[in-house]
């Protein structure tokens, strides 16, 4: 008995019971799609992490106020906020650092200009900020050392690029609707040329000296941001505390310039700050730490999908088992005939297993289509080129589907092969 005979019989059988076949491979397809989506997302995540690391530099350390401030009474008493002086001390002590960028940040400001009066986010930074993962195109100028020295009332405004008409990515439409995310501040900034204008933030007046053109979300490679803060407006570091209430710096972002000394630098900076604060009430985390944390979050979510995939494939497998059993009952006579004319038990076994594997194959292929659709429509930014989508991901998914067919047809096929030929022939 050759395989092509089994394939042909299998195809005829599946084709003559289209609905039944469809139902059983559909679950497999959903499972494969979920697998594919998960694989692709994990692969894409790793690729974007590499990109983000390259952009940010491998020597990045972020210092922020610790979440566990009062671990002991001593620490609570000795608690001081992260101050601008801390940043300057680091700069003084370690002149070799490529960047020491202290940052204030607040969400709770209102931006006024002409008719606009909307909530906007604001950061106070110094010139070192420009050394961090810089994705902007600058019109005018950025914050200078002079601005910081004089605590000037100047501002640099971020203008996020809009998608060209009709080019809004499908995933964004899916999650946020056809209109996309509402962002009245950005809408206004795009329409109005603010360069040289005076804007008001809460009660303070600033002159706009620069516009930072930011790429669309889709093209922004800073997926693993060193900080989560991505403000609409930048003002000089020293100007910030004069007009806005703060409880110290939000973070100090440091670039050691290279990866090799990062762990050593992390420890030295920790020691310096611990000495200054009289206890460790801050967190110093490297980009690696942050990336790992984000990866861990992403993984949790990926596992959820993987679980859905496994459950769907199991359901599909049970479906295949059910179909194979049903098929056998409706084909007892046929089995009898085949046995009478010389089919061995293993011929019969093979025939039913091959049929089930074909169901798995069809489900797998359908699942790849479904999965690619899912990735295209639901996935995160910057993935649509699918460069990470290597050939082995769909190949493995289809193999899993075929294997499911194999596994779940073993029992029914075994039962079929054990049928008594005389009884099977007599069966009507």
């Amino acid at each position, binding site marked *: 008995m050759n395989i092509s005979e089994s394939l042909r019989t299998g195809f005829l059988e599946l084709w003559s019971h289209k609905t039944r076949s469809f139902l059983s491979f559909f679950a497999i397809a959903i499972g494969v799609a979920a697998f594919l989506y998960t694989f692709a997302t994990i692969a894409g995540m790793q690729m974007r992490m590499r990109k983000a690391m390259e952009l940010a530099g491998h020597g990045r350390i972020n210092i922020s106020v610790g979440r566990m401030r009062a671990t002991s009474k001593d620490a609570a008493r000795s608690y001081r906020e992260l101050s601008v002086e801390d940043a300057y001390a680091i700069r003084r002590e370690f002149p070799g650092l490529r960047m020491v960028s202290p940052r204030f940040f607040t969400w709770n400001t209102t931006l006024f200009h002409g008719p606009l009066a909307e909530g906007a986010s604001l950061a106070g930074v110094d010139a070192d900020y420009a050394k961090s993962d810089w994705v902007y195109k600058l019109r005018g100028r950025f914050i200078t050392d002079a601005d910081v020295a004089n605590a000037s009332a100047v501002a640099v405004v971020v203008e996020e690029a809009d998608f060209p008409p009709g080019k809004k990515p499908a995933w964004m439409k899916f999650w946020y609707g056809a209109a996309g995310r509402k962002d009245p501040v950005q809408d206004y900034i795009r329409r109005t040329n603010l360069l040289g204008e005076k804007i008001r933030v809460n009660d303070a007046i600033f002159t706009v000296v620069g516009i930072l053109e930011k790429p669309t979300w889709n093209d922004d490679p800073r997926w693993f941001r060193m900080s989560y803060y991505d403000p609409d407006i930048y003002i000089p570091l020293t100007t910030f505390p004069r007009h806005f209430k703060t409880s110290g710096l939000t973070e100090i972002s440091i670039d050691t310039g290279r990866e090799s000394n990062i762990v050593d630098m992390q420890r030295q900076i920790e020691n310096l700050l611990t000495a200054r604060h009289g206890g460790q009430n801050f967190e110093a985390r490297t980009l690696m730490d942050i990336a790992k944390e984000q990866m861990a979050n992403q993984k949790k979510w990926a596992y959820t999908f993987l679980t859905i995939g496994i459950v769907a494939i199991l359901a599909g497998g049970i479906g295949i088992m059910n179909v194979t059993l049903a098929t056998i009952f409706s084909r007892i006579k046929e089995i009898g005939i085949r046995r009478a*004319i010389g089919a061995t038990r293993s011929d019969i076994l093979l025939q039913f297993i091959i049929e089930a594997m074909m169901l798995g194959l069809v489900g797998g292929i359908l699942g790849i289509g479904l999965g690619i659709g899912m990735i295209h429509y639901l996935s995160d930014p910057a993935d649509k080129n699918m460069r990470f989508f290597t050939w082995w991901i769909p190949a493995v998914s289809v193999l899993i589907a075929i294997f499911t067919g194999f596994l779940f047809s073993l029992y029914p096929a075994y039962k079929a092969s054990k049928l008594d030929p005389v009884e099977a022939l007599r069966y009507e």
Partner: protein
Amino acid sequence: MLISLKDITKVYPDGAHGYQALKGVSFNVEEGDFLSIMGPSGCGKSTLLSILGLLDQATSGSYSLDGREVARLDDSERTHARLHKIGFVFQSFNLLPRFTSEENVALPMRYKGGQPYKEIKARAKELLTSVGLGHKVHRTPLQLSGGERQRVAIARALANTPRLILADEPTGNLDTKSSAEIVALLKELNDKGLALIVVTHDPNVAAMAKHVIRMRDGLIVEGAA
């Protein structure tokens, strides 16, 4: 000696003592013989045919086929013998409904293997031509008349050049004209040297046979003993 049966019994495990379908049947069949088995329904002739065709096993007694004791063969050896030595013809034809005539005839050859499908197809067509169906190789059983279906079944039985054809009421589902054609075809095969064992009610079939056995209640009551 192609077949030698000695004191074959068959007991089905039914009720307290079981149902005894065959109570000790003995006869011999030579190469090229034509044996007809007759008798009322329930006399055990179908059971006998299943045992002769290696589809079923006797409870006791000895059955040697082509010099080999069948009781000693395992399932795959019995299947092998069925594939190479025996062709079956059934009352209800037992063709696979979704397959064409050609594919039905090809099936035993495909199970046998070792031959490219092109050759198998050519041989299937040849066989169908020899039973007068060379022009209907691509029809499925549903597109054929009863007599044509039985001729396809006979072509299938001949596929692996067996030594023995076992036929169970081959004309039972056919009209008079088709029956006559099938009987003539079987006779022709026997004339070419093929051994034939036919279970039948049809006196026309029995008339053609070289020997006739009559059975009742699991025993041979007339004919070779």
